[in-house]
């Protein structure tokens, strides 16, 4: 398992736990660095399969989910996650470069709320943090 648990000093965190599932290291590291600055505690995974396992074990407050990934893609991961009692309601922000408008599967999965959608190339890291805080009612 290439999952990684960024251990923050509990006193320094804002008390919210975010799971970042992203296979590309530079992007994952940029997100992690930014979320850390905002005092989130962070879990990471580089594929949907391990990400699902971590999610069901650690029950994060929110999941940032990429779509195209090895082992298990983000959409399959989300579908499985939603069949779990806890996983059914956990907020998920899909963070991908795939156009949601162009894909019927994505559109239907987006209907399984609470799920949100951001296109990586069109958002700043700051905008991702804003969205996370908004979904977690922190703003």
């Amino acid at each position, binding site marked *: 398992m290439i999952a990684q648990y960024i251990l923050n000093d509990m006193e320094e965190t804002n008390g919210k736990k975010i799971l970042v599932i992203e296979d590309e290291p530079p992007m994952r590291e*940029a997100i992690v660095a930014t979320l850390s600055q905002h005092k989130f505690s962070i879990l990471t995974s580089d594929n949907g399969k391990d990400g699902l396992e971590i999610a069901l074990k650690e029950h994060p407050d929110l999941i940032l989910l990429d779509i195209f990934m090895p082992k298990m893609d983000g959409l399959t991961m989300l579908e499985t996650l939603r069949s779990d009692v806890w996983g059914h309601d956990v907020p998920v922000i899909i963070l991908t470069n795939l156009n949601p408008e162009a894909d019927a599967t994505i559109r239907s999965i987006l209907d399984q709320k609470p799920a949100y959608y951001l296109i990586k190339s069109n958002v*700043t890291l700051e905008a991702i943090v804003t969205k996370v805080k908004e979904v977690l009612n922190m703003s």
Partner: protein
Amino acid sequence: MSDTPQVLNLNYQKTVILFPEAILVFDTNAIITRIDKQTLTMFGWESEQEIIGKLGFDLIADQDKQNVQTAFHEVLQGKSITGLQCNGVKKDGSFLRISASASLFSDSQGAPKEIVVVVHDITPHLSELEQVKEAQKQLAEAQQIAHFGSWEWDISSDKFHWTDEMYQLFALEPQSIPVNQEVLLAHVHEEDKEKVKNFITQSIADGSGVLDFRFVDPEDNKIRWFHSRNKTFYDDNHQPIRMVGTMHDITREKELDQVKTQFLSVASHQMRGPLTTINWHAEMLLQSQSEGLSDTQKKYIQELYNASKRTVRLTNDILTVSELELGRMPFKPESLSLPKIAKRVLEDYDHKIAEQKISFKEVYSGDLPEIVTDLFLLKTIFHELISNAISYTPPEGTITMTISVDPSHTNTFLLSIADTGYGIPKSEQEKIFTKMFRATNAKAKVMGGTGLGLFIIKLILELNGGEIWFTSEENKGTTFNIALPFVSSNKGTLLTT
């Protein structure tokens, strides 16, 4: 020629104008007894002596001899022959095509005496016909090779004429059935039937038209794409009398075009990955206070960041065009408030408007009903129009956005965005909706444009109903007008004109 009856002379006067005519007189054994001068010319003989006394059938090509002999005997029985066509033989052995008429003359006792034959040389006439036939054959072959048919419609009698290849294109035996609108529409794709009907009516009104539509081959149910062009002809009172057109199978071109568009779509998606990495890291560098970057270094990073963001915009526009052209853009109609959506899009530009000190005026007429359309497509239209107006208006200019109900068309909104910007040069106005086109003054003043914005609006309006037009004067400003139906349609596939 003193013995030649009067009636033959009259005949001669009349027909010589049309074709060379020769007169020959035969005895009852078909021996030539007398001829006129034209006979010599026609058959290539030098003197009467050479030909008088010959058997008449010797002037006829072998393959036609028997027919001519039979006809001669019938004339001997008293029957007149007119317009018998056969091949004659000249003195030098070459052939000519002749048409012969013959009558029997009897002596005073009523016994058959001689037969007078009038011969027309129809070789020139025939070769013209053969040339026409040859040209028709070549045209038919060319049409078959190119999968290119042509047709004609006589509007007043409602009669169609199709070339053989037209029948082939429509999966019919050439010239097997009379053509009418039903035959034409029988296997046109269900979704395109209305389009084809409208196309014909519209072409009568406009004088010409161009349309791509789908045809479902009844043999294998495969979709074929036809490209159709036509032209209408009118009488002196401007009544349409005739329409001619061409039909071209462009299935292969459409497939190639799709492969290209799909490639663009995949490539654009792939490009977003590295661009994201560049953007995010530039953002982190610019925001970190403790890293000790100099102002110059920050400026350089800002340039990298700007360039990367521009590339993202271009990529996004290419993707939008690809999705629209592939017909993959989903259409989810919902009731929306136009001013609300306009304001929401406008928020994204608040910063730029303030920065450029632009005065942005919004005029929404009261009692605007909700529009039923796809949110993403509607937002795209606003985005493209607003960002264009801001980009091409110098600081301290004015932009006025007006949304109202079109007074001259029922169930239509009128959306207009007027700026006091650089304007579009007159000579370039007709190209402004062309893919990747940017006006020269726009290119000189604004670096980031993609030349796709107006093309995208036009694509969306073509697909979902609506129209766009503009007025513009250089260095005075531009006004874009859009007519949007209360309820947008979803035509699904694309008209490429």
